[in-house]
């Protein structure tokens, strides 16, 4: 549905977006990650046709955004970063304006407003003026206008920003449900959100895509991915260390005693051996007559990957 090819945006001498390419298909939810100022919003603004790219191409549903903007824009629902609303209107008035701008008329507008109002929990404030609403309601009002025409493509710039934890959860569920039939791009700072919602994630840093994969694939790039953690009792630190270091699949081993039990962190020799390592550790424990209290393989953590990819080298060294 969305094809982005070698997208470049320059503001004066500064390159905000540098040759970004990716595609999003129907049924996919793409998480857009990156530090502040990485070019996420700029990329989204080019996808929605708000700003033209310096070079490169965006096509939505087969329509090129610069050559054929109107049919492309018809397919897109857009929630900008600051969730702007016409504050002199009521929620109902604003949504009905958005619906009319989307070419809807008469009865269908009322139906659409009812639908999005219940999806975004706005029924209670429909006839309230937007400027009397709290930030969370305003945010959901703008979110509601982005889905008023049930678009095939959704571009959401930080859709859960400014919401309380319950609302965040609801919005995530909503995005996930809609993602079954639509192509969705959303940007966020919250890494759990990516794991909870996205089918694929892109990390963008200083205008360049630095990682692109499923959340699981990204997590596997973490330093600790595949690390086996074990807590046992009934052995000595030296014995445990000797036994575990001797395993074929083990790399670095750290052992320490913790009260009556001993904990060990075993790095696999290669990431692919993580599963085998866990089994070998279990076998070793039962052969030696230790009691296994806990055995756990780390999947890796997205925030570690995010930090290792996006932190400038100088910062990494001083840490």
């Amino acid at each position, binding site marked *: 549905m969305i094809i982005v090819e070698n997208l470049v945006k320059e*503001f*004066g001498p500064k390159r905000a977006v540098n040759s970004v390419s990716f595609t999003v298909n129907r049924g996919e939810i793409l998480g857009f990650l990156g530090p502040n100022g990485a070019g996420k919003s700029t990329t989204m*603004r080019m996808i*929605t*046709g*708000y*700003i*033209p790219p310096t070079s490169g191409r965006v096509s939505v549903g087969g329509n090129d955004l610069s050559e054929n*903007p*109107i*049919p492309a*824009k*018809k397919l*897109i629902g*857009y929630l*900008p970063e*600051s969730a*702007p*609303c*016409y*504050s*002199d*209107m009521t929620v109902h*008035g604003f949504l009905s*304006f*958005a619906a*009319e*701008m*989307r*070419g809807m008329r008469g009865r269908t507008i009322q139906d659409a407003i009812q639908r999005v109002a219940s999806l975004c929990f706005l029924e209670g404030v429909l006839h309230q003026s937007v400027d009397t609403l709290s930030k969370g309601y305003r945010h959901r009002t*703008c979110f509601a*206008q982005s889905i008023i025409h049930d678009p095939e493509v959704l571009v959401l710039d930080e859709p859960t920003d400014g919401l309380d934890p319950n609302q965040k959860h609801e919005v995530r569920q909503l995005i996930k449900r809609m993602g079954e039939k639509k192509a969705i791009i959303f940007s966020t700072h919250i890494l759990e959100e990516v794991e909870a919602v996205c089918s694929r994630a892109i990390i963008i840093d200083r205008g360049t895509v630095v990682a692109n994969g499923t959340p699981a694939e990204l997590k596997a790039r973490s330093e600790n991915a595949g690390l086996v953690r074990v807590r046992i009792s009934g052995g000595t630190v030296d014995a445990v260390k000797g036994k575990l270091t001797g395993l074929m699949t083990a790399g670095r081993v750290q052992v320490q005693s913790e009260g009556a039990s001993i904990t060990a962190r075993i790095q696999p020799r290669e990431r692919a051996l993580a599963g085998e390592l866990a089994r070998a550790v279990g076998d070793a424990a039962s052969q030696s007559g230790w009691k296994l209290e806990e055995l756990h393989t780390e999947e890796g953590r997205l925030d570690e990957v995010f930090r290792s990819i996006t932190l400038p080298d100088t910062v990494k060294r001083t840490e």
Partner: protein
Amino acid sequence: MSSDSSRHIWTIAKRELSGYFNSPVAYVFIVIFLLLNGFFTFMLGGFFELGEASLSKPFFSWHPWLYLFLVPAAGMRLWSEERRVGTLELLLTYPIAPWEAILGKFIASWIFLAIALGLTFPVVLTVGYLGSPDLGAILAGYLGSFLLAGAYLAVTVMTSALTRNQVVSFILSVVICFFLILAGWEPVTNLLVRWAPDTIVNLVASFSVMPHFGNFQRGVVDLRDLLFFASVIVFSLFGTGVILRGLRGA
């Protein structure tokens, strides 16, 4: 113009118009406009002392000066508010062409100004009651006043696209509209005549709204004057389009 376009324009105009009337702005504006009109016509204009059944001098001659402040005040928020709040990003990502939005906003404000101007009708009734005025001349005066308001408004639309600050937009448009008055205002042209050749004076004066409005004020509807106002409006709205495109590109 396709029916889609006219629907988009009307949707945007409707939103802007209801924006005026949903806030105190419209009512304050109309009351002040009518009060000032009454004050200028009957107090400063010496309507009763003139002893003429005409609106040209006591009523219409004040409009270029009255509009100088009131029209920028009515139009200053049109684009600057969209920029400040960020709704510009919504508006320009809807499936519409930017010129439809520009035209819609302009039309809404122009309709609003027309309503305010229309509410000055008691002055027509008064002059009709007291004497037998030339109704054609009065109609021409109203047409000229409406076009004058449109020209100022188009300038204001352009300046409001230049900035996210309403006050800046107001001041810029007042300055430009003031130039449009001064360039052809008699006291200024009389000064120019002393040291500049006639062609230069005429060239400068031709940019001014004053001689063109003056014809309407006297009851003369000339195609050239209509074209003048139309071209100020078209030029300013076109300029607005260029400014908006520049905003998105940079």
